[in-house]
């Protein structure tokens, strides 16, 4: 952790030195101090944009994780349905999720709803696939043992499969945090009423490079925070891993 911070700091120092020493024009690379200055100057605007993006990412993340896990459980309980649903899910998953973005935008409008749906879709698939393979990853002998003691399918699910699936599901959720932010930002770029992606796109159109970098900095900091939080929760509650 300390080494990572030291590394990050040295990257910033190098960056600053390069931008100032080589006198790089802002469209190539603005100096870190200028970017930070811009963030401070426009904190109200950036805060509002960040709040919107975070809301979309977090709500979408929650809906997606829940839906993914529930679908995985239902399909594990109904093997017959699973055999027909799984190929379709895999096919849908191989279409890059951004390809659906224009369609979702047309369906749900420019507001935050379309971003939430996109994030939920992206997160949902990842969590679903992770949870499904986690639910399968139980020792068949343990299943047989429980069954021989008269446990029904629900009991096996609750006591054996779910605890076994949680580590992998949590890993899927951790991977999804970054993706949730990316998808929210990408969808905002296509069309939105606010948010960091929208801010970045507007700044690109106005050729305001410092603003672009300021928004990237804010987005990265939030992503890191989000990732760190989920990682911490995972370490704390999935202790039996």
């Amino acid at each position: 952790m300390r080494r990572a911070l030291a590394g990050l700091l040295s990257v910033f120092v190098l960056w600053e030195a390069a931008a100032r020493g080589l006198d790089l024009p802002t469209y190539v690379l603005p100096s870190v101090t200028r970017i930070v200055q811009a963030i401070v100057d426009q904190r109200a605007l950036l805060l509002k944009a960040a709040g919107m993006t975070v809301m979309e990412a977090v709500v979408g993340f929650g809906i997606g994780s829940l839906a993914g896990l529930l679908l995985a459980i239902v399909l594990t309980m109904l093997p017959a349905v699973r055999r027909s649903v799984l190929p379709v899910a895999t096919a849908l998953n191989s279409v890059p999720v951004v390809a659906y973005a224009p369609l979702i935008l047309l369906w749900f409008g420019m507001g935050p709803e379309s971003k939430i749906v996109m994030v939920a879709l992206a997160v949902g698939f990842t969590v679903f696939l992770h949870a499904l393979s986690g639910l399968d990853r139980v020792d068949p002998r343990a299943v047989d043992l429980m069954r021989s003691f008269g446990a029904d399918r629900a009991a096996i699910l609750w006591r054996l499969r779910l605890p076994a699936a949680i580590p992998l599901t949590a890993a899927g959720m951790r991977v999804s945090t970054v993706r949730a932010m990316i998808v929210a930002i990408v969808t905002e770029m296509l069309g939105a009423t606010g948010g960091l992606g929208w801010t970045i796109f507007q700044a690109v159109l106005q050729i305001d490079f410092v603003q672009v970098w300021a928004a990237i900095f804010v987005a990265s900091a939030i992503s890191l925070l989000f990732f760190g939080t989920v990682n911490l929760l995972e370490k704390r509650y999935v202790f039996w891993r």
Partner: protein
Amino acid sequence: MSETAHTGATGATGRAGTGAGAVVLRGVATVAVIALVWEGVVVAAGIKPYYLPRLSVILSAIAALPQAYLAGFVRTLSETLLGYAAGALVGVMNGVLFYRSRWLRETVFPLFVISQTIPVIAFGAVVVLWFGNTILAKALIAFYLTFFPVTVNTLTGLEAVDKRQVDLLRSFGATRKQLLFQLQLPSALPQIFVALRLACTLSLLGAIAGEWFGDTTGLGVLLLQAMYNEQFVALWAAILMAGLLGTSFYGVVAWAEHKTVFWRSEL
């Protein structure tokens, strides 16, 4: 009861038919069934084209303008492949480097992790500003998305190599190079392939989103144009092409995995 017994087995059935012919046949059958269900449901339920156009309508839209879709397909494919190949290569080399050098692993590797939490697409705007609307800019975004998972999995795979095997080979006088190419990399291959499969979708995502910053050809451009004109059939046609690209790309990598890592094919 027999139903329950099936649950554990279904995960394995996907791999059970080992013959390549059987796999292809099953794939074709699945596609055919999905196509029939799609067409049938849309017609039977009277779904508006606004939500889901008939598959036949979409296909004929593609057939009406084959050059445009083909050009977009080829363009996006080359961007993706360029970035993917470079990312895979650099990723494996990085993994080996991190494995060899503890210092690098402790100082540079955390930076890599942090760099991956940066919403790449935001960075994509800057990349396109730097390189203009060239194929290189999109390939670079695809590269950035590919190399990290490959680096991480190469490192994990190398670290999981049995120490006793290393000692054995070393006792027979194997050089570091021999160790790497005869034992460590082959042992890490299953892990590396997991990342390579994941990176398929990621690199394609990078290429498509990269095209949104004002390119003229590519599947991302087709998507954007269809959205602005609210042409649902064209939009679905572009989605279908992206799906075709994604699925075949993934299929090729999965096939390569099946051929190379024949000794272990789980996950």
